[in-house]
């Protein structure tokens, strides 16, 4: 249990570094230099020094409580995730379904905080965030359940545990049809990632040119810093889930590392995998696509993404039932 603060601190630092890398890569793609990689740390430092302004017509208790809950729940998710192939700290006391539930918490906290701030912009933002949440949950759930079912049908016990899924390596359990199916599920999950993290093109809940930051419009100072950290930690969490399910490969056996060397290599490889996932799922998506309208978000998630996920589900099912042809 002494590891908990350590993991929390590591997740926050890693999340902020990821944000820094994300900003540099985005800037380079737009032919800009971009900020130094330490910029998110500077931002946090500055926000923590700033005054915490609570609007007059807000509900102060809820308004101030929600950022704390958001960060706490985001950190809690991290404790349930297998990182770099190691079993999660809270292994056995919760599984994938729980992770999916806790993952909603930060968004939900933002919605409640937005409603509590009493600004019409935040209200519009909160409504949009709820709609977005409801839309992306379905493809996310399909992906999670399919992989869990696939692992259980391969004879593994405790198939809803993320650690079991990660060690089982879903790609090894299927034949060619299933491979296509898994690839589709992978794509569906990458689609969900920017929505989950409220990034362009799915950021209409925050949309700074439309509703001036939406949910976060009234937040400032420490409260905003906490939401900023939540976002950083959520990026790590979401990328880790994708890595655990679809990129569970380890590098140790390939080069014949052992002992401490192997641990270090795994961690470095994990970091690289997460950076790659964040690049595809967030950075590239947010610079290459314009922002969707909320109606379009629903269409993309409940239409296209769900269709992709369902097709993936069907293919994986067919593959398993036909015995891995």
């Amino acid at each position, binding site marked *: 249990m002494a590891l908990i603060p350590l993991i929390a601190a590591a997740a926050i630092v890693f999340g902020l570094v990821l944000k820094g890398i994300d900003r540099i890569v985005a800037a*380079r793609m737009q*032919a800009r*230099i971009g900020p130094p990689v330490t910029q998110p740390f500077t931002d946090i430092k500055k926000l923590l020094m700033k005054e915490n302004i609570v609007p007059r017509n807000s509900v102060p208790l809820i308004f101030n409580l929600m950022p704390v809950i958001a960060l706490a729940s985001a950190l809690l998710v991290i404790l349930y995730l297998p990182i770099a192939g190691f079993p999660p700290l809270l292994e056995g006391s919760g599984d994938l379904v729980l992770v999916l539930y806790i993952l909603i918490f930060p968004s939900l906290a933002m919605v409640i905080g937005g409603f509590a701030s009493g600004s019409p912009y935040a209200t519009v933002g909160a409504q949009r965030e709820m709609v977005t949440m409801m839309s992306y949950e379905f493809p996310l759930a399909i992906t999670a359940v399919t992989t869990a079912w696939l692992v259980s049908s391969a004879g593994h016990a405790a198939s809803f545990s993320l650690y079991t899924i990660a060690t089982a390596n879903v790609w090894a359990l299927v034949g060619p049809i299933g491979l296509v199916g898994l690839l589709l599920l992978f794509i569906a999950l990458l689609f969900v990632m920017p929505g989950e993290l409220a990034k362009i093109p799915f950021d209409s809940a925050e949309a700074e040119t439309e509703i001036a930051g939406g949910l976060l419009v009234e937040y400032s100072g420490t409260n905003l810093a906490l939401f900023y950290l939540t976002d950083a930690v959520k990026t790590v969490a979401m990328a880790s889930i994708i890595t655990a399910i679809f990129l569970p490969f380890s590098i140790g056996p390939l080069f014949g590392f052992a002992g401490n060397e192997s641990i270090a290599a795994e961690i470095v490889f994990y970091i690289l995998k997460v950076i790659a996932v964040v690049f595809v799922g967030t950075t*590239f998506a947010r610079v*290459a696509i314009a922002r969707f309208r909320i109606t379009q978000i629903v269409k993309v998630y409940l239409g296209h993404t769900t269709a992709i996920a369902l097709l993936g589900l069907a293919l994986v099912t067919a593959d398993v039932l036909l015995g891995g042809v």
Partner: protein
Amino acid sequence: MFEMAKELLRQLFKKPATNEFPAKHAPKSVLKLLEKVSKGKARLNPPIPVPEKFRGKIDYDRNKCIGCKLCIKVCPAAAVVFQEKERKIKYICSRCTFCAQCVDVCPVNALTLSNEFLIADYKRD
């Protein structure tokens, strides 16, 4: 379709278009950086050279001036003030809009254009 995405990937591997003047990133302390530069320890990236017709800060040659007040008549920003006693003018750079109308109108070329444009300062004159 998705022309932008292709262009973005192309730009990822190209040099950024930003002109790194005077430094790539904002320094922690500007004064310390300037101190370092004056000691020769750091280097500032030079600005892009100005074009031939550039209208920068106006140089005033007090000796040539005959006090005809024509520049005051055409200056749109009241950046030129007449000094009654000496019958000369005073040029106030912080008001200047750099239209160079006074330079065009001066009969004795006492006012000339310079290439200087780094004129931000803590003091008004």
